[in-house]
C-alpha cells in the first residue's frame, strides 16, 4: 500500500490537469445564476437529500445487523408481552378478541417511535467525528435535507418492521386490517416517524454529545410507552394517567390503528378514543398527529440554522 502522493499527470502543454472543460462550464453557470438559498422546493434539495439517503442505505446494506435486530425485537415483544397477559379475561381490553390483537397496534407504533427517536444518533456520531462538517461547509439548498434523508431512511425501516409485526400478529390470530386500513396504518407510521425524527435531530444539534443524547433517549423512550395506550386501554388507567395518556401523541397514533384492526367499515368520523376531556374521532386523531409532526419540523428550524450555521 503506497502512502506517497503522486506526481500529478500533466497535459501536453505541461500544466497540471486540475480541471476539465465540463467542470469549468458548470462553474461558470453557477456564478451567473446562484440564488442565495434555493430552499426545499428545488432540484438541488432533491439531489442532496437523495445523496444523503443513499449513504444511509449503503451503510445498512453493508451492516445489516440493525435491520435484523430491528425486525426481531418487536416480534419478541409481541410474543412475550402477548403471552404475559394471555389469560386476562376477555372483554377487559375493549373490543379486542384477545390481548395479542390489542397489543399489535401498540407494538407497531412503539417500534416506529423508537426507531425515529434514535435517528439522531448516527448524525451525532457524524458530528463528533467531523464528518458532518462536510455537509455544513457545502452549499446545501436547505439543511432540512439532513432531516428528510434520516426520516426517509427510518420510515423505510419502519415500514418493513410494521409489515413484519402485522404478519406475525395475523399468524397469532389477530387478523389483518382491510386494504384502506393498511394504507392508513402506513400513513400513520410515516407521519409519526417524520415528526419524531425531526425532534431527534433537533436534540442532536442542541445537545453537547452522544452521551447526553443517549441519556435523553433513555428517559424518553419507555415512559412515553407506558404513558400511552400501547399496553392497556385508557379506561384501565387511574385518572391522572388517563390525562397524561390523552396528551401523549403516541396515543393518537395507536388508537386509529387499533380501531381499523377491529372495524373494516371505519370512517374519519368513527370515535376511536374517549379521553377524560372529550371523545376523539379518527379524523381528529390524524389531525393531531399531523399538527405534532408540523410543530416538530418548525420547532427545530432555529437549531438547524443557528447551531450549525
Amino acid at each position, binding site marked *: 500500500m503506497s502512502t506517497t*502522493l503522486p506526481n*500529478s499527470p500533466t497535459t501536453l502543454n505541461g500544466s497540471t490537469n486540475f480541471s476539465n472543460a465540463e467542470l469549468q462550464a458548470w462553474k461558470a453557470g453557477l456564478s451567473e445564476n446562484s440564488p442565495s438559498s434555493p430552499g426545499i422546493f428545488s432540484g438541488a434539495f432533491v439531489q442532496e437529500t*437523495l445523496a444523503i439517503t443513499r449513504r444511509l442505505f449503503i451503510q445498512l446494506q453493508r451492516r445489516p445487523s440493525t435491520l435484523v435486530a430491528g425486525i426481531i425485537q418487536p416480534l419478541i415483544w409481541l410474543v412475550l408481552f402477548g403471552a404475559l397477559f394471555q389469560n386476562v379475561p376477555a372483554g377487559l381490553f375493549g373490543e379486542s378478541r384477545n390481548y395479542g390483537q390489542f397489543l399489535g397496534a401498540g407494538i407497531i407504533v412503539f417500534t416506529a417511535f423508537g426507531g425515529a427517536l434514535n435517528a439522531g444518533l448516527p448524525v451525532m456520531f457524524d458530528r463528533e467525528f467531523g464528518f458532518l462538517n462536510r455537509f455544513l461547509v457545502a452549499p446545501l439548498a436547505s439543511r432540512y435535507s439532513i432531516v428528510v434523508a434520516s426520516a426517509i431512511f427510518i420510515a423505510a425501516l419502519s415500514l418493513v418492521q410494521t409489515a413484519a409485526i402485522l404478519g406475525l400478529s395475523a399468524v397469532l390470530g389477530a387478523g389483518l386490517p382491510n386494504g384502506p386500513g393498511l394504507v392508513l396504518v402506513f400513513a400513520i407510521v410515516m407521519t409519526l416517524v417524520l415528526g419524531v425524527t425531526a425532534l431527534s435531530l433537533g436534540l442532536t444539534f442542541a445537545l453537547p454529545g452522544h452521551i447526553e443524547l443517549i441519556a435523553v433517549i433513555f428517559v424518553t423512550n419507555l415512559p412515553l410507552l407506558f404513558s400511552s395506550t400501547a399496553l392497556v386501554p385508557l379506561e384501565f388507567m387511574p385518572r391522572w394517567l388517563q390525562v397524561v395518556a390523552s396528551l401523549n401523541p403516541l396515543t393518537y397514533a395507536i388508537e386509529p390503528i387499533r380501531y381499523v384492526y377491529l372495524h373494516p367499515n371505519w370512517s374519519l368520523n368513527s370515535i376511536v378514543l374517549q379521553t377524560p376531556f372529550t371523545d376523539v374521532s379518527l379524523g381528529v386523531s390524524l389531525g393531531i398527529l399531523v399538527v405534532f409532526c408540523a410543530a416538530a419540523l418548525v420547532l427545530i428550524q432555529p437549531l438547524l440554522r443557528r447551531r450549525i450555521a
Partner: protein
Amino acid sequence: MVAAVTIENLKKSYGPVQAVRDVSLTIQPGEIFGLLGPNGAGKTTTIRCLCTLATPDSGRLEVMGIPVVEQPQRVRQFLGYIAQEIALDKVLTGRELMQLQADLYHMPRGVAAKRIEQMIDLLELGDWADQKTGRYSGGLKKRLDLALGLLHQPDVLVLDEPTVGLDIETRSAVWRFLRQLKAAGTTILLTSHYLEEVDALADRVAIIDQGKVIAAGTPSDLKDKIGGDRITLRIREFTTDEEARSVQAMLAQLPFVQDVIINAAQGNSLNLVVERQTDSLAAVQHVLKEAGLPIFGISQSRPSLDDVYLAATGRTLMDAELAAVGQRDLKKEKKQAMKGG
C-alpha cells in the same frame, strides 16, 4: 483586483474563552497564505469562521468579495475546506464518498462522473477508489480527503494543519501537490504550527498568538525585519553554568554583538544575535582563541520564523506549545467547537 479572502478585526469567543481577539488579514488570488502559531493560538477558530462553521462575534469576513456572514450559501460554493482530522465514512468506498460530495455541491451527473474519474487519476487512487475507506492507509486517506475537498474545484482551498500526523514522505508529497495546485491558480490558506511547513510553502504568512496577529508579511521580509544573523556557539558539549556566563559577558562586549542568550536546554550553548555582513564568525572564533577556550561547535545562520516569533512574544514556538499543553482542556474545546454557533 478583488482579494480572495479578507478578514478584518475578527473576534470570536467560546463562553469565557476568547479564541480570537483581533485577527485581520488579506489574501490575494493565487497565493499560498500561511497562518502560523502555537496550538491554541486561534488558527482553527479563524478558519472555522471563514468556512461558515462558526459565526463570528464581530468583524468582517469576505471570500472573493462576498460577505461570509450575510451570504454563507454563495461563499460555500467558492470554498474548499480540509479539516485537520480526516473524517471519512469507513463503510463507504472512496468513489461513493466522492459521489456524495458531488451531490452536496449539486453537480450534474455527467460533470460529476467525469470529475470523479479525474480526481481518481490526479491523486492516483486507482483501484482503491472502489474499496471501503476503512481499509485505507493514512496517506491514502489524506489523498481521498484532498480529492473530496477539491472535487468542486474551489477558488479558495482552506487546509487546517494539512500534514499533522502524516509520515515525512506523505508530507513532502502534500507540499508538492499544494504547490502544483497553486500553480494552477488556486488560492490556498493553510494553518500550521510547523515552522518549516510555512517557510517552505507560504508566499506570505501571518504569525498568530493568543488570538492576535503579531506579525505578517513574506517569510523573508519578516526575517529581514528583525535583522541580524544568528551564531550558535558551543564551547564544550556540556558547558558549565559558570563558564557559559563568563563567556556570555565576554562576547557581549564585542561591538557587533547585539545580544547573547544562554540556552540551558542545549547544554548551555550560546545564541548570539549579530549584525549582518560582518566577519562576525571569524571574530568570535578569534576572541575565544585569545581567551584560550575550546570550540565544540559554531555555526552562523539567517534568522528563522521561530526567531520572528521569539522577537514578538519573548518565547519560542516550542515553549508556547509546551505552556499551552498544560493550560488547555482539549475535550472541552472540541465540544465548544462542535457546538459551533
